[in-house]
């Protein structure tokens, strides 16, 4: 399959500060690729490298066969981009901003209008008077309004309400159906699970692994928060697929993987005063999964860490690296 994006040993340091280190990965044409990691993992750095806003310290990246630094303007002409923290000019209205974006991308000046109506964006209000969510809608409109073959989005649903998040996922699905490639950076695991075909997981500037999203750990893990009426020993939670990630007095945080019934059966026997079950966010995944190792973790479908190729055993080099820290 042809690669829409190729990263080869891509490294960026801002002086002494680490951005991304030795990233090697491919994004296939027509797929929705998640780029998942906690804040500060280096996701935005990778996107800025792709758009030629910053120069790699080492390595290189190509987008649709063109080097992102030496052919920056040509690369950007094939990308629709939504910044992680879109900064607009407060004195302009959304309409003026979107018309400007259309002209900069050589689109018809009213290309934005159908999408704005679909997302219920009031385009006549000066942007300084818009809420965070409405400002984010401008970004969503501008990223989907053009015909560019590659969409690059950095935390695209930040500030959007659940209805708009759902609409966003519909837009992603439509873009995928049109054969466009989507690179979606996020720290929201469920968003990546719902939108993406594959996802790369990055932490502290390094690629940990790349998997199909159905094999992502968060797909099977749940976060269980308990408030106990009376003390229970750690052994009370010694069940398959259960891990204590935090404990402070009577409050216990568990990560539970797989079948929940044995856990629920055990909880009935404990003095549980309060119980919350939630899907884990990326921080939880790293706490409960990557930091402590996961012997029952699924094998990586396509792992590249530090420029190395996947290990045939299925044991991920990334995880091995984490364990040996």
């Amino acid at each position, binding site marked *: 399959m042809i690669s829409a994006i190729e990263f080869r040993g891509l490294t960026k340091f801002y002086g002494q500060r680490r951005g991304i280190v030795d990233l090697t990965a491919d994004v296939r044409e027509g797929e929705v690729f998640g780029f998942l990691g906690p804040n500060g993992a280096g996701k935005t750095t990778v996107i800025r490298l792709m*758009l030629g806003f910053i120069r790699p310290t080492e390595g290189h990246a190509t987008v649709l066969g063109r080097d992102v630094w030496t052919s*920056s*303007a040509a690369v950007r002409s094939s990308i629709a981009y939504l*910044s992680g923290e879109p900064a607009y000019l407060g*004195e302009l209205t959304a309409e003026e901003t979107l018309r*400007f974006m259309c002209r*900069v991308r050589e689109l018809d000046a009213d290309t934005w209008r159908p999408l704005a109506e679909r997302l219920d964006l009031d385009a006549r209000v000066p942007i300084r008077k818009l809420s965070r969510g409405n400002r984010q809608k401008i970004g969503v409109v501008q990223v989907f309004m053009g015909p560019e073959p590659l969409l690059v989005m950095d935390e695209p649903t930040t500030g959007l309400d659940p209805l708009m998040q759902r609409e966003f996922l519909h837009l992603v699905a439509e873009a995928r159906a049109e054969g466009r490639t989507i690179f979606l950076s996020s720290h929201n695991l469920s968003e990546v699970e719902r939108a993406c075909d594959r996802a790369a997981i990055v932490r502290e500037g390094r690629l940990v692994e790349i998997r199909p999203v159905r094999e992502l750990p968060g797909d099977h893990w749940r976060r269980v928060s308990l408030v106990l009426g009376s003390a229970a020993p750690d052994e009370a939670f010694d069940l398959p697929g259960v891990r204590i990630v935090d404990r402070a007095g009577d409050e216990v945080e568990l990560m539970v993987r797989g079948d929940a019934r044995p856990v629920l059966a055990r909880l009935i026997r404990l003095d549980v005063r309060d119980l919350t079950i939630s899907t884990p966010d990326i921080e939880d995944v790293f706490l409960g999964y990557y930091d402590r190792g996961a012997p029952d973790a699924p094998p990586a479908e396509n792992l590249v860490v530090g420029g190395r190729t996947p290990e045939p055993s299925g044991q991920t080099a990334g995880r091995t690296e984490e364990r040996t820290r």
Partner: protein
Amino acid sequence: MIAALLRLELRRTRLLVGWLLLLVVAYSAILAIVYPAIRANAANLDLSMKAYPKDFMAAFGMEASLSDPGVYYTADIGILLWPVVAAIAGIALATRPTAVDTERGWIETPMSGHLSRVAYALVSVVVQALTLAVLSVATVGAFVGVGALVGANLNAGPFALAAFAAWLFGCAIASVAMLIGVATLNRGVAAGITAGGLIVMYVFRIVGTVQPDLGWLANLSAFRYLYPTHIIDMGTLPWDEVLGFAVLTIAAWGIAVALFRQRDLVA
């Protein structure tokens, strides 16, 4: 695409230019209105000016009688109002699309299209040059125009040359500010260095004029060159100095654009 960016940048400049235009037109017009009275009372004024040391008066542009149109314009506008206005406009405009928009993140919007970095930076240069042209013409035009209305009989030709010199002086300020702004991506630093440099050169000119043994300091000052009194009185431009300022300005803009093309756009 370039036209859209140019239009937007000019639009963003409206408010600043509006206020500065109001200032320069009002100030120049008032000075023009007063000028006939200055000329009518030249003898008395010259007598009172003699009470002050000659070098001291010269340091502030009053080398001769204030009834001289070149001296009057230079002392009140050429080395007083205009450098301040040019510094405000030049620094603000030269640092906005590069340093400020990078700091705020707006730069990612225009730069996420097909636009090259060189084109983006050149649009900024054009906006600086256009804005300073409007301001310099308005400053001199208000003085000469209102002067004509009140019977000051100012010769428009030499003043047009003075407007050109003022524009070039302003462009030099803007180009240096842009260069520092691109290098640091920090408006505060760029403004501080540029404005600080101007103040130091202004002081150099005063000290160098008042203290003849420190006359060499005045030679280090940009204010010594493209001197409006000489241009207006002689009715011609000092071409060596024009060339020097033009080379400095084009070089600073050129280096700024080249640097902008290569540097990380992250504040």
